[in-house]
């Protein structure tokens, strides 16, 4: 059972990576500061927000896909943008899907580091946005794990990208929707082979991030 790494498979792999990495990057850009802010600042309604975000970690992709479909459909409120059945629509769906994960996990990471840094930050009088950014920088290694968790969820989901992307060949077909298609065609061995490629891909991204973390960790040790 050998997968020919032909142009089609490479295209699908490329789009999977592009969509999921972009989605995670966008979610991180918004979710990590939001998570840190939740950890560092006390404001009315904070606890319900934390509970809500944590609950949304279990959001079914197919439900989110349906909501994004209804928003982006030509008859929906954002229909004029013409984004349905494009990679952009898939990125939007996956970014929204992993956003709660990024916020909730970032909040935990920053909250646990805060115990260590609270005194220092208070003595230096670091506050507000500056405090959020400083703590995010200090927590950057642990936040990579947050990013990986989000990436794992994004690259593995099929429900949302199927609905908003449409699984269009050479346009919006990604690994998971290709696996679903080959399974429905009864090409079980090809579907399985594609699944192995997907696993391999996830493994490579994880190894890559760990290597980066290791290198930057060592550099910090040297600097210290």
């Amino acid at each position, binding site marked *: 059972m050998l997968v020919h790494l032909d142009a089609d498979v490479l295209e699908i792999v490329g789009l999977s990576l*592009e969509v999921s990495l*972009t989605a995670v990057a*966008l979610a991180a*850009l*918004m979710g990590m500061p939001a998570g840190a802010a939740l950890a560092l600042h006390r404001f009315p309604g904070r606890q319900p927000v934390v509970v809500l975000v944590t609950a949304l970690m279990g959001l079914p992709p197919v439900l989110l896909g349906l909501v994004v479909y209804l*928003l982006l*459909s*030509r*008859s*929906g409120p*954002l*229909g004029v*943008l*013409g*984004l*349905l*059945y*494009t*990679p*952009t629509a898939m*990125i*939007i769906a996956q*970014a*929204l899907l992993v*956003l709660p994960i990024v916020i909730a996990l970032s909040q935990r990471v920053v909250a646990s580091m805060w115990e260590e840094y609270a005194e220092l930050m208070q003595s230096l009088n670091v506050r507000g946005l500056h405090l959020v950014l400083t703590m995010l920088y200090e927590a950057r290694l642990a936040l990579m794990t947050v990013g990986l968790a989000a990436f794992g969820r994004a690259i593995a989901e099929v429900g949302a990208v199927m609905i908003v992307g*449409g*699984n*269009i*060949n*050479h*346009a*919006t077909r990604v690994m998971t929707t290709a696996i679903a*298609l080959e*399974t*429905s*065609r*009864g*090409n*079980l061995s090809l579907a399985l082979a594609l699944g192995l490629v997907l696993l391999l891909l996830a493994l490579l991204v994880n190894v890559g991030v760990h290597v980066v973390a290791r290198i930057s960790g060592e550099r910090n040790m040297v600097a210290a």
Partner: protein
Amino acid sequence: MPLACVLAIVVGLSSAFLAASHAWAEESIILQSTTSTQNSGLLDWLLPRFEKRTGIHVKVVAVGTGQALKNAARGDGDVVLVHARRLEEDFVRAGHGVDRRDVMYNDFVIVCPKDDPAGIAGLKDAAEALKRIARTKTRFISRGDDSGTHHKELSLWRAAGIDPRKASGKWYLEAGRGMGATLNMAAAMGACTLTDRGTWIAHGNRGDLTIVVQGDPKLFNQYGVILVNPERHPHVKERTARKFIDWLTGPEGQGLIAAYRLKGQQLFFPNASASAPKTDDE
């Protein structure tokens, strides 16, 4: 409100991001079609040839006929290629589409495990076959997804005078999935199901299923193509879409449909110009 804000930001950022990386300059249309045209490989055979001839890229969303028509009614597509005459006519009558044309036909077959648990092998009467399936309580998997095949199946049960939904969850199982996935289930469970011949021939995982009933005129399967109404949905690329419809129903498209063979068998029979298609294609 916060969700809307977040969404607006994501849309803004990712559109800007992707505008750079994806060039959508090529001419393209969206075709809402059925799982049978995709799973049988027909569209993979036709569309690259159409693109080579015209430079028009056809993006296919393959779902059940019911969903394809609903998506198109929302304006999410330029053309539909489906197979459920009554639903198609309703779609046109409701003003969602214009200019419906016949494209091609094949037929449906009833497949069962080789040991023929319902005792229907060789029957020519599909309704009688369903009656026996019901009488013997042989497991039957329905698409159950509002697709063209599902509608055909329900019309056959009506012809048999049986309401199988009373047995839903017992011997009558509504899968709610595409044709290929339903065949996978039937093969795994040793159940009977109704399938279009194209998907059946192309399907790679039949287990010990085999065709037991075929050749009933009621099993005729007509495909039609419809332009999504450009007056109702101004973004529909009418000129490009019409080029595709004309090609598909013209000599080149029809010739290619007739020429498509899988495992030595012809899957679809073009009949765009025929006024009264013959049903005895067997």
